[in-house]
């Protein structure tokens, strides 16, 4: 990438003898920017917000009180600027500029065509270009999805398992979380995890550990829930769908399942604005699609 496509206008041009405090105020409105410093019509250096901060009073209040205000207020741009700036032609590549900045420990380079200053490039700009390049390198399609279904229909009684899940599927014909997730899964060729979290289920039973005689009923409920979830998935999608039933808190269950499966997208249904959805959004390791 040529630097002329990446450069931006400088935050302004200042004279080396100008007050540092005034220059710092100009930079305050553009935290990622930098000022080009001229001295008698000649390019003398660059001033970034970090340079201005380093030369100014201490940012630690208990240390700053010991600094004489008269001393710091008398500082000029020349005292804080980076002399001998990195100057690059507009046709230089971003790699060349990054290399030059890294080698010389500068935070900004001046883009100049012979003697005319055309713009500046800061490390923030170069990081932005790097982020874009990394994003383009990621596979364009999603590979793993997690859909949490029937969150509000956690079965408290034996006979409610089928009913609750089936009703949830019927009443929301178009935009159920499962429909949306299956559609995305098909188009992306992704793997889907169909999750249901049961509040009343023993964690040990859900994990397949022996938990005593009373656990038999819970095991039956677990098996019923798994079977009910499996029935929700159309036959043609069963090879790409995995059923997961977890015990305990719903939000924790969703987050744990997302972490375990490496989900790139969580699809959730439930009541609009339900606390479960909001809490999941605030803590999820990936974006959440609330249907």
């Amino acid at each position, binding site marked *: 990438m040529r630097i002329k496509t990446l450069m931006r206008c400088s935050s302004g041009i200042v004279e080396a003898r100008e007050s540092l405090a005034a220059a710092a105020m100009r930079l305050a409105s553009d935290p990622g920017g930098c000022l080009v410093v001229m001295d008698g019509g000649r390019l003398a250096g660059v001033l970034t917000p970090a340079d201005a901060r380093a030369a100014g009073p201490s940012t630690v209040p208990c240390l700053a009180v010991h600094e004489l205000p008269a001393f710091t207020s008398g500082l000029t741009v020349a005292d804080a600027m980076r002399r001998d700036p990195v100057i690059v032609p507009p046709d230089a590549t971003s790699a060349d500029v990054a290399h030059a900045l890294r080698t010389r420990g500068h935070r900004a380079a001046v883009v100049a065509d012979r003697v005319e200053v055309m713009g500046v490039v800061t490390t923030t700009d170069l990081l932005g270009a790097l982020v874009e390049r990394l994003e383009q390198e990621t596979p364009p399609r999603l590979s793993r999805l997690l859909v949490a279904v029937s969150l509000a229909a956690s079965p408290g009684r034996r006979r409610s398992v089928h009913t609750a899940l089936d009703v949830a599927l019927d009443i929301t014909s178009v935009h159920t979380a499962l429909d949306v997730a299956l559609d995305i899964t098909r188009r*992306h060729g992704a793997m889907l995890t169909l999750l249901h979290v049961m509040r009343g289920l023993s964690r040990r039973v859900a994990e397949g550990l022996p938990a005593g005689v009373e656990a038999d009923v819970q095991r039956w409920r677990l098996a019923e829930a798994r079977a009910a979830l499996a029935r929700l998935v159309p036959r043609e999608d069963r090879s790409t769908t995995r059923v997961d039933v977890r015990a305990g808190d719903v939000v924790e269950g969703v987050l744990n399942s997302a972490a375990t499966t490496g989900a790139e997208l969580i699809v959730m249904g439930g009541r609009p604005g339900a606390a479960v959805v909001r809490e999941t959004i605030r803590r999820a390791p990936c974006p959440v699609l*609330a249907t």
Partner: protein
Amino acid sequence: MFRRILVLLDDGLVGRRIVPWVRRLLAPVGGDVHLLVVLAPGRTVIAGSRTLSYANQSEDAARGAASLELAGVAARLRDDGFAVSSEVRFGDPGAVALDTAQAWGAEAIALVDVPARGARRWLTRNVADDIIQKSTIPVLVGRTSGQRSA
């Protein structure tokens, strides 16, 4: 699957985190993306007896700056083959986003949840909560930090 997504952005870099996810979500099917920035309404600035700028002037300046930012985002999405439109509006972000989504015929809304800090947490409504609660279409919500990048 939805093909028309309204992307709600802010006037900074934070909201852009959702754009790569929208690109990935739409990658297999292509689609239309509408970029929307909703800014606080402009205010008349008065110093003493002089009016320094009128509300419409403030709004024009803010619209110009936001449009410039949007143009860069839109150009990159167009390079990926999406049909992109953009718009800058003023008002309550939640209400404006829902109105625009309905008028434009969006099939989903995408945004980044920016949690308010300090007293604002109690004084203002969270935009993402507002939209999720009132939206009749799916809402894709990302976080400002602590989340994997696209």
